[in-house]
């Protein structure tokens, strides 16, 4: 417990060290701390912003998908309708062609039958005359009988 000049030396050293710390130690460390705090704050707000942007984008993507799906459905419906229409048209066309063909064939058949009837009629007349000639075996006034036969021919029509 001896008091001596060490006391004052220590006092001076105390202030010199404190001054040195104030000048060269404290400010840079505080600056680094403040800067880091600011960086962290900025980073956090950036993260928040990114998050909200992401949510927005996701919503947009969902909307786009929905829209795309809707338009695809629409397209498919249109295509199906068109396809059905095409098939329907084709069916009608086919039916029309078939009907036409049938009518043509019927008409042709009618004409052929008529012709056959004509030919038959001719031959029936000749046959009848010949038959009659054979049956009667006598001269017959061709003129008189021709009218008769013409009447018969007319009846056969």
């Amino acid at each position: 417990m001896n008091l001596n000049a060490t006391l004052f030396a220590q006092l001076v050293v105390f202030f010199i060290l404190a001054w040195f710390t104030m000048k060269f130690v404290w400010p840079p460390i505080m600056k680094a701390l403040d800067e880091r705090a600011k960086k962290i704050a900025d980073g956090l707000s950036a993260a928040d912003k990114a998050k909200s942007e992401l949510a927005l984008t996701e919503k947009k993507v969902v909307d786009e998908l929905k829209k795309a799906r809707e338009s695809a459905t629409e397209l498919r419906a249109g295509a199906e309708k068109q396809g059905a229409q095409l098939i329907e048209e084709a069916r009608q066309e086919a039916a029309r062609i078939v009907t036409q063909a049938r009518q043509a064939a019927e008409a042709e058949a009618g004409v052929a039958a008529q012709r056959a009837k004509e030919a038959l009629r001719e031959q029936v007349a000749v046959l009848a005359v010949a038959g009659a000639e054979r049956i009667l075996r006598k001269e017959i006034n061709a003129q008189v009988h021709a009218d008769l036969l013409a009447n018969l021919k007319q009846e056969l029509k």
Partner: protein
Amino acid sequence: MATEHAPNASEYIVHHLTFLTNHKQVGLVDWSVLHLDTLFFSIGLGLLTVFIMARLAARATSGVPGRFQAAVEIIVEMVSDQAKSIVHSPESRQFVAPLALTVFVWIFLMNAMDLLPVDLLPLIGNAIGVHYLRVVPTADINATLGMSLGVLLLCLYYSVKIKGLGHWIHELFTAPFGAHPLLWPINFAMQMIEFVAKTVSHGMRLFGNMYAGELIFMLIALMGAAWAGTFGSGLLWVGGVIAGTLWAIFHILIITLQAFIFMMLTLVYVGQAHESH
């Protein structure tokens, strides 16, 4: 050791409690004497403190800090927070907060010299011709009172700076009891007692803790030195190892706590200087 024969317990203790001085001290107070060992270790550790921190501060990054930077930042933030809550003037804090940081780290290091083996540095000193050496600067009352006196000067400076000389002197005579002229001498006496008590207790608290701690380390060392080949001395030696371990572990708490208390009281006293009664 200065003596030829092995020292007895009392000689050992007295030798360890003798400072390395420029010349022998006469009387209790002798302003011509310097404790060279105290100055050497306190200035050395002080320079170590500020230069390591300054080196770190120069490279301090605001990005991801290294471990050492993070450790220093923890201390700096602790001191900064305490200073903010106690000293309310930002302008004063520009000096007081770094001062508190210096005080904390510096006193911690000076206290930590107590944890070195009590004979290690004196033995080395003896080998190079230094026959007396005390390695714990804070176990020297001159060092602790020197620092508390510095805090007192700081308090006076801030009292005058913040309140103005006239107001401060007015306060010296009118606080704490009142402005009646009859109370002036009593007020002044109370104020003086307060200043003296603050300063002396501030320095003595640290000194007392460190001095007592050092003394106990010496006593424990004496237990270990009792080894003489007998069973009893063997027990003492084992006791010395156990006690030394326990006391060193406990002392880690004490040195940190005392450094912290000194720093906090520095801030509190400077904070008080800012407040008007």
